[in-house]
């Protein structure tokens, strides 16, 4: 499932993500804008790597190539945030953050929000699928990757 949500999980005003000035993560962020999830996959030794680095941490080959992977995984850990640490979140209420591991990409992990009821019971190990959240009007425009519990796993 590579669909897109028309809504934002969190209110506008949070910091906008951008690649570093050296461009290291640019393929990741441009991929999200296109509705593609990209992870570094070393051509020399097959190691998956995320976040990106200029070198493969296993075999030291430079510039590990980016590969499209399916945006699905399982919940490795989670938190329900209550205290607003940014003005944009004041009055918003609780929200869920999940750490998702990708079994088909070397168990690399990604942080995102878990869509749906913020008070839902969250189960470590639950299967989740990615949902692209596009912020086309932001300066600069960007996209996020959110997660929702896989339907067959939903309660």
């Amino acid at each position, binding site marked *: 499932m590579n669909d897109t949500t028309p809504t934002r999980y*969190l209110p506008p005003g*949070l*910091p*906008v*993500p*951008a*690649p*570093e*000035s050296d461009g290291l*993560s640019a393929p990741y*962020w441009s991929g999200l804008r296109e509705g593609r999830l990209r992870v570094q996959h070393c051509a020399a030794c097959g190691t998956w790597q*995320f*976040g990106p680095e200029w070198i493969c*941490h296993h075999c030291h080959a430079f510039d590990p190539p980016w590969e499209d992977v399916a945006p699905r995984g399982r919940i*490795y*850990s*989670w*938190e*329900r*945030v*209550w*205290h607003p*640490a*940014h*003005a944009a*979140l004041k009055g918003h209420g*609780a*929200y869920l*953050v999940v*750490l998702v591991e990708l079994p088909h990409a070397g168990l*690399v*992990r*990604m*942080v*995102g*929000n878990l869509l749906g009821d913020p008070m839902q019971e969250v189960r*470590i190990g639950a299967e989740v699928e990615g949902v692209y959240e596009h912020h086309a009007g932001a300066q*600069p425009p*960007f996209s*996020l990757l959110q997660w929702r519990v896989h339907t067959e796993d939903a309660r």
Partner: protein
Amino acid sequence: MSVRSLRGRVAVVGIGETRYYKHSQSPDAEFKLALKAILAACEDAGLDPREIDGFASYSDDRSEASRLAAALGIRRLRSATMQWGGGGGGCCAAVANGAAAIAAGLADCVVVFRALAQGQHGRFGQVAGIDSVAGEKAYLMPYGVLSPPQRFAMRVRRFMHEHGVRQEAMRAIALASYHHAQANPRAVMHGKPLSAETYDASRWIAEPFHLYDCCMENDGAAAIVLVAAERARDFARKPAYVLGAATGSGHRAGAAPHNAPRYGSAGFDTVAPDLYAMAGIAPADVGVVQSYENFTGGVAMALAEHGFFAPEEANEFLTLDNLVAPSGRLPLNTSGGNLAECYMHGFELVLEAVRQVRGTSTSQAARSDVALVIGGPMVTPVSDLLLASENVL
């Protein structure tokens, strides 16, 4: 060639701190706080501050060594070291770096310190004035993972999940800090006891962290004076000798965002064994522990990684009775620490370990000739320090 070790070669001969304030309430500039703590440490030692020839700090302390040297009119500056990394991960490493400079003959009298005025320079617990983010923050902040509790809660959740650790274990750590703070007039939370009921009823900051699982934010400064062991007995106070120190982190601990292989961990898997090896002691020899509490869950993981209990035993070990001075199994954070004395970025813990070795704590442990300080769970690098009285050497 002798064994490469700090064991018994350097001692703490002076400690000093400013008054500890709630964040934004210091009437003094941050640099002035640093100066006051340093002078207090020199006075405690009976040392002319002009004898200082080195400074060491951590976490990008803004009170820079050369400015301190000029302000204090010291005769010459020989060592100026800054430990990389944020949070309290460097609170013991800065002591190790200062001690290493002395042991290697690069300096004779090093002051190690930390000064913080969050009101003047921005709070750790709030994010403001950032429009765009790159690097690790870009993977976190747009998802509302902005402040330290939000960055660390998922590590603790994973640890609790893997080992069946209950909220009551975290609560015991918070209760121990508040219990000890009631005896400590320096403590910001002196006169403000915490009950289990109040903890349970307190609001969530980020589950599994209640309000009382989270450190305070404070203004103040704290400092110690280090000299070579041969000179230690020339000073006014009972010396606290460096028995061991270790810093660093394990395999790919810094893999961002949240990709460290050992995730439900405080990060001492390689550091704690180094510490015990240098000191030549075992966990059972430690009489009292000061363990950096950014969040209680980090303390639980750190104590397990230092061999005081297996993670599966956390619920049995982490009870209030076991953690209080004088005669708990392992008196913990006997000044109140970051939760209830002062969030001096963990440096107040180093001073408290010195007091334990001297026998001058307001919550003295029954066994205090070997005092452990654990710096900065869940960050990288982390660091450890063991202090001991002369009879242990």
